[in-house]
């Protein structure tokens, strides 16, 4: 049996190698993923298991200080997971189940945090709700200590809840209203339906949202750096270990400790939740979802969501307003000096570099994601799941860990004999002044999202269309270009948009990789925030948001306008 299966797999592999182009593409992808994702992680694991690294595990894990840090990290992940999922659930529920005004506006407001640079929300929150906050102190007259778990929960939940919202909204819309109707006919009231039908059906979505947020919160570096106070978490500890002590071994060990919960949760999310999921993605719901009309529920929930929207608008309003005043929170006189500083000073180079590097990484990430999705969904070969899984590691692993992996792996050239396989990538003497390493990190951080959207889109397209093209004489490449790619265009577009926005706003993965020659905006924002020049930081944020929005428009223009059906598909992602 085993032998037969193996021989079948060999045959399938042979089928792939019959088309040389397909084989080359497959090998290229495997090569790329191995070099850019797998090797750095292996290097990091190797460093932590080295003779210098191994004893550190015991030292860290038995030290009460580090136990507290580990505990802080897990508590923060759990709290943010719960609060963020709850907020996302509320937004989704109001969108799908309630007949209330301003739905479109609420949807757009819920999407804003996706393109927001790091530090922006935390810094604005300090200006508004800090000890001398415009609201906490100015209106309520209290010196609220926002530094720590409570502040972090606020800013992280607001930054990440969009993931839960989109996830749960998609699921709620996919719920078959026939179930509600059946329950109603059997005499159940709305609360009972919610409790016994809706909620159980959504449980996998709720669980997976919680886990996604948990991982995001564990990996986040920007927010804890700005408003962690004495609440130290593993991500900031790893950062100080590298930046302050340049102890790569210690950092690698701490990274492994951070990696264990992140990876466990990722695996649970991927294999267990997906298995218990009862909602079919492909099934089109019949009829429109029933709405809930009880006024207390309807307007109560509406009020809560509007309140949260108000906070989001207030925070982003503070960012925009703050970029035009002398010292946000202290001196409110109008000035353009922050924009002058960013546009005509050091900011100009950071803007150019960051935009150029992101623009380079975006199509590469989109294409790699789509090609791997195509290979994984349409072709059968040995190690198919492994390729998919390895690509996903690019995002499942916290950014700081990727950064350390790159430092360890690419700080010297990789040679095979006298042949330089890969030149030195990191540091000022690295290839293209270190820019190549940053591009690669951008690519591997964004390709997983393109892979997922691509996989989802491809599984909804009947393979017989492609088979028809093949039997009409087109080869694999032509079929992919002329048939598959146009069909998954919306997914491709979504992948590109995500890739660009993610690259422009990422900090944790590239913070160890910036060099004198390449200045990155998020790094500059951190400098300004750390030196308390919030006005400059806000001006950077505003410009960054504008660049991302312009880029999205450009992408729409290049990749093509959407049809209604496509918009529907994209909205569900």
């Amino acid at each position, binding site marked *: 049996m085993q032998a037969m299966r193996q021989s079948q797999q060999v045959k399938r592999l042979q089928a792939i190698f019959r088309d040389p182009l397909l084989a080359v593409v497959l090998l290229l992808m495997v090569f790329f993923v191995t070099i850019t994702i797998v090797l750095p992680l292996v290097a990091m694991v190797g460093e932590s298991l080295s003779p210098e690294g191994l004893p550190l595990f015991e030292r860290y894990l038995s030290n009460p200080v580090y136990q507290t840090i580990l505990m802080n990290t897990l508590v923060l992940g759990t709290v943010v997971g719960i609060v963020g999922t709850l907020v996302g659930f509320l937004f989704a529920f109001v969108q799908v189940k309630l007949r209330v005004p301003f739905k479109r506006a609420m949807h757009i407001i819920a999407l804003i945090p996706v393109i927001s640079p790091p530090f922006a929300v935390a810094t604005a929150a300090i200006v508004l709700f800090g000890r001398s906050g415009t609201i906490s102190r100015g209106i309520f007259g209290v010196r609220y200590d926002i*530094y720590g778990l409570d502040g972090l929960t606020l800013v992280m939940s607001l930054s990440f809840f969009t993931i839960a919202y989109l996830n749960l909204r998609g699921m709620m819309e996919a719920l078959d209203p026939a179930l509600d109707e059946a329950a109603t006919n059997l005499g159940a009231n709305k609360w009972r339906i919610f409790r016994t039908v809706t909620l159980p059906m959504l449980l996998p979505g709720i669980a997976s949202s919680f886990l996604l947020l948990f991982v995001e919160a564990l990996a986040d570096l920007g927010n804890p750096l700005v408003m962690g106070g004495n609440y130290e978490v593993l991500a900031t500890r790893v950062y100080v270990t590298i930046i302050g*002590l340049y102890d790569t071994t210690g950092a690698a060990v701490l990274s492994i400790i951070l990696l264990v919960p992140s990876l466990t949760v990722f695996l649970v999310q991927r294999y267990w939740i997906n298995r218990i999921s009862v909602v079919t993605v492909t099934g089109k719901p019949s009829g429109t979802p029933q709405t809930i009309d009880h006024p207390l529920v309807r307007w109560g929930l509406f009020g809560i969501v509007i309140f949260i929207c108000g906070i989001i608008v207030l925070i982003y309003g503070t960012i925009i307003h703050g970029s035009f005043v002398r*010292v946000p*929170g*202290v001196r409110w006189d109008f000035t353009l000096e922050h924009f002058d500083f960013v546009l005509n000073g050091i900011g100009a180079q950071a803007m150019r570099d960051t935009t150029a590097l992101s623009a380079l990484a975006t199509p590469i990430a989109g294409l790699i994601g789509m090609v791997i999705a195509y290979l994984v969904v349409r072709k059968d070969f040995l190690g198919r799941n492994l390729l998919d899984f390895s690509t996903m590691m690019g995002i499942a692993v916290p950014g700081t860990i990727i950064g350390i992996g790159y430092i360890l792996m690419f700080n010297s050239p990789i040679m095979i004999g006298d042949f330089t396989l890969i030149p030195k990538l990191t*540091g000022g*003497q690295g290839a293209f002044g270190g820019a190549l390493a940053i591009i690669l990190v951008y690519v591997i951080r964004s390709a997983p999202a393109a892979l997922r959207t691509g996989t989802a889109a491809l599984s909804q397209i009947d393979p017989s269309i492609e088979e028809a093209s093949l039997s009409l004489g087109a080869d694999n490449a032509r079929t992919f270009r002329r048939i598959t790619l146009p069909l998954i265009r919306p997914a491709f577009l979504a992948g590109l948009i995500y890739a660009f926005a993610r690259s422009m706003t990422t900090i944790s993965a590239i913070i160890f990789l910036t060099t004198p020659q390449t200045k990155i905006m998020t790094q500059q924002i951190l400098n300004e925030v750390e030196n*308390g020049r919030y006005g400059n930081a806000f001006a950077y944020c505003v410009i960054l948001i504008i660049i991302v929005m312009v880029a999205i428009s450009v992408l729409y223009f290049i990749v093509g306008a959407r049809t209604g059906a496509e918009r529907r598909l994209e909205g569900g992602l």
Partner: protein
Amino acid sequence: MMNKKLMSLAGIVGGLLLVGAPAFAQDTLTVLCTPQEDWCVAMTAAFEEQTGIDTNYVRLSSGESLARIRAAADNPEFSVWWGGPADAFEAAAEEGLIEIYDSPNTEAIPENYRDEAGYWTGVYVGALGFCSNLDVLAELGVEAPTSWDDLLAPELEGFVAMAHPATSGTAFTAFWTVVTLNADALEAEEAGTGYDEDGAPTQAAVDNAFEYFAALNNNILQYTRSGSAPGSLAGQGEIAVAVIFSHDCTKLQLEGFDGILTTTFPEEGTGYEIGGMAIIANAPEAEAARLWYDWALTAEAQAIGPTVNSLQLPTNPDAPVSELAVDLTSITVVEYNFVAAGASRVAITERFDAEIATAPTE
């Protein structure tokens, strides 16, 4: 169709790359810059204009700088290191990370502002102080601190900030100042207990300093990465007192926080920094680095600081002194042993990191 669109995208991307591509000309210089960013910008721009050398810089705190040049010692990224307290330079010289350069312009600099062996030369001087928010102080009902012990007042719990000594030279200067004060106190009680034969503070003095900072930890809101950052926390009213260099407080006052922040000095004595400068060992652009070194010692180069509100005292006696700069003769300054400070730096920062900075406050 798709293809053409992709091609045009590639074109746009390519164009952007050309604009954003770093220059790889022969005449380049990469400066490791430790003072505040706008001063780094002004200095490199002035140098570039004068020499035509394409000058880049990276701004890193002094602890980070030390860590970074140590990590890349075989293949240095930087050629010259400008600014930041001299004890970091002492530590770098000890480890062979910087090299001796006998600049013709060194003679203009007073002897007490430069290294005997010639590893580093001072480019500015500044004194450590307390930068306090007047409103917050009034509300907490405390006066602006005038001694190190004032910082321990229970009213200030969670209202004091300083940087982390591992990353910040400012914070390390503060630590070493307390070490020196403790050494003086021990020495006054019994000769030989405060200082050893070489004039370096004894372990007992260091232990006492750790005791002080363990107590202070209860009042600390946050240890920042960069030395000047606590000042703006004070300006924002997030804390009452920041332990920073007085010129950083003055800079904030000039940039929007006038009437909000006030500078005081500990009466028993405060530490000071000599902002150092050195050539990195095996510098990739040694020629340009030496040009920078010569230039940065001139009165003309040292006049640039005040134009960006950086009011450190110049070391070149011919450079103009801003009337806003601190007058070292009007405050008590400790006998700061830079050599001993540099030698103890690694041990102290690691111990601070393990015993104090990560310890949660009670």
